[in-house]
């Protein structure tokens, strides 16, 4: 049945719109991101200040545009680390199996049984606060989820006859894994990349909210939300607008992953 995949369409629209604003926000914002002004303190949303201003008189919309950059930067880095290392580990352990596979999968099981926010918290306990520590912690934490997906796909495909067929033709194992099998895992990998982004954004925002991630003066959505909480009575729009942007980013990615899942079926 040819049904419109609304999940995918809406997910992509949300993500692209936010991404465009974010990219612009790295070069130009309507107002200065850092300049404070006592006359513009805590203004409600208006045509001049779409999201209003914060307690120091900074334009929230500008800060959100710029702050999303940090969020995306952290997400892209962590997913890239997790995906690249995960594919290699998953493909090799899945194809060769054996003792190494057992050990790696046990470690994976343990890591995967912890929510990423919790694990990031634990990692930060060891590494200390800071953006790059958050990237490192989340990146390492995402390796198992990618490794597991790739591994199970490789195991599924390696018993199929087209792999035997390639073996009979004389293809080497590495060629079989990376040229014959991995292209088949494209859709599942895309799905996990979308889920990975979803989790990375959530984890980064949580870390920064707790004051353990991105440090001032760099704007970050999680940190802004933490600040905003203190002014929830005098300037509720601060928390609400910032929070909604976080929700939209996560929603975009989760809709994409859901859409891909539907597509896969």
């Amino acid at each position, binding site marked *: 049945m040819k049904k419109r995949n609304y*999940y995918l369409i809406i997910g992509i629209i949300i993500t692209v719109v936010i991404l465009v604003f974010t990219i612009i926000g790295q070069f130009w914002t309507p107002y200065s991101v850092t300049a404070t002004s006592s006359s513009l303190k805590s203004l409600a949303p208006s045509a001049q200040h779409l999201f209003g201003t914060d307690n120091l008189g900074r334009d929230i919309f500008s800060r959100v545009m710029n702050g999303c950059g940090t969020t995306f930067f952290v997400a892209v880095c962590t997913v890239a680390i997790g995906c690249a290392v995960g594919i290699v580990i998953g493909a090799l352990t899945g194809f060769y199996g054996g003792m190494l596979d057992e050990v790696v999968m*046990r470690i994976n099981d*343990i890591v995967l*049984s*912890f*929510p990423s*926010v*919790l694990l990031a*918290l*634990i990692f*930060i*306990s*060891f590494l*200390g*606060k800071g953006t790059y520590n958050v990237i490192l912690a989340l990146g390492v934490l995402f390796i198992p989820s990618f490794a597991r997906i790739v591994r199970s796909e490789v195991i599924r495909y390696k018993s199929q006859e087209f792999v035997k067929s390639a073996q009979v033709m004389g293809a080497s194992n590495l060629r079989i894994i990376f040229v014959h099998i991995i292209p088949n895992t494209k859709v599942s990998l895309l799905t996990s990349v979308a889920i990975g982004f*979803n989790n990375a954004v*959530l984890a980064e*925002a*949580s870390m920064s*909210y*707790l*004051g*353990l991630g991105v440090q001032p003066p760099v704007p970050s959505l999680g940190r802004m*939300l933490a600040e*905003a*909480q203190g002014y*929830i*009575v005098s300037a*509720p729009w601060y*928390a*609400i607008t910032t*929070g909604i942007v*976080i*929700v*939209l980013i*996560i*929603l975009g990615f*989760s*809709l994409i992953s*859901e859409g891909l899942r539907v597509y896969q079926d």
Partner: protein
Amino acid sequence: MRYFLKKLSSLIITLLVISLLSFAAFSVIPGDAALAKLGTDATPEAVEQLREKYGLDKPLPERYLKWLAGAVQGDFGASYRYSTKTVSELIASRLPVTVIMAVMSFIIIIGVSIPLGIIAAKYSHKPPDTVINVGSQVTMAIPSFFLGIIITYIFGIILNLFKAGDYISPQKDFWACVRYLIFPSIAVALPKIAMVVKYLRNSLLAEVNKDYVRTAYSKGNTKDQVFKKHIFRNALIPVITFVAMVAAEILAGSLVIEQVFGIKGMGNLLVTSISSRDYPVVQAAVIYITSVVVIINFAVDILYQLADPRVRYS
């Protein structure tokens, strides 16, 4: 029985590995605890003295064994920050409220999501299902701390149903504490409800088209009977594992939500200890939290085996 012993031994090994890792990790952090406590401008003699006091001058393996022996009995040494309290006392005062909140969220999640999941599956691709689907897709995207802030704003400030920040510890007044925890629990539970509903629905629908379901209909079962007697038990098997993940997620959610509602629980303890480099406390908190997750997983493995005869007899 063999299965049980196998799982039990792997549980013990996992716990040991975690203890070793967390001990090792805190031992290699540059600038040890003595320095952290005294600051960089302390005299070398003073640092040396403090090291001796904490036993930091001994070799690593010896320190690990001594620490492990203490840890098993619940003794994690003294806090650097609160010089009058031991780590165990600190944790004992903070753990109950986190546990209460986690249990409350769990009850809310299970109570709400199982009926919703079944309704969604029964009326799949019909209006009730669509409403539940869209609802869960959106709630899943709301981070619990933002949800917490929204709840404080709506129920605390606009509707005045509770006072954010008026936290009472369970040791002081248990029921007052439970009453205060209702809103934080909902904040933790809501995104997870969405996850469980979605998972249960998909798990049920995955079963609906299986051959044995057709057999069940061919015997003359009604749709309700087929769901109740045949599909539900099969669909529950994957959900059991998923619920373990949710239990761990609840724990993570509670740690963050404590900051929003000003609850003095484990999450608050962990975050403040990380910020003040109070390593013995961080170490103990990490061990407690990870142990809980590992033990939940162990329990779920056992449950899983009871639910699925294919695992039981193989």
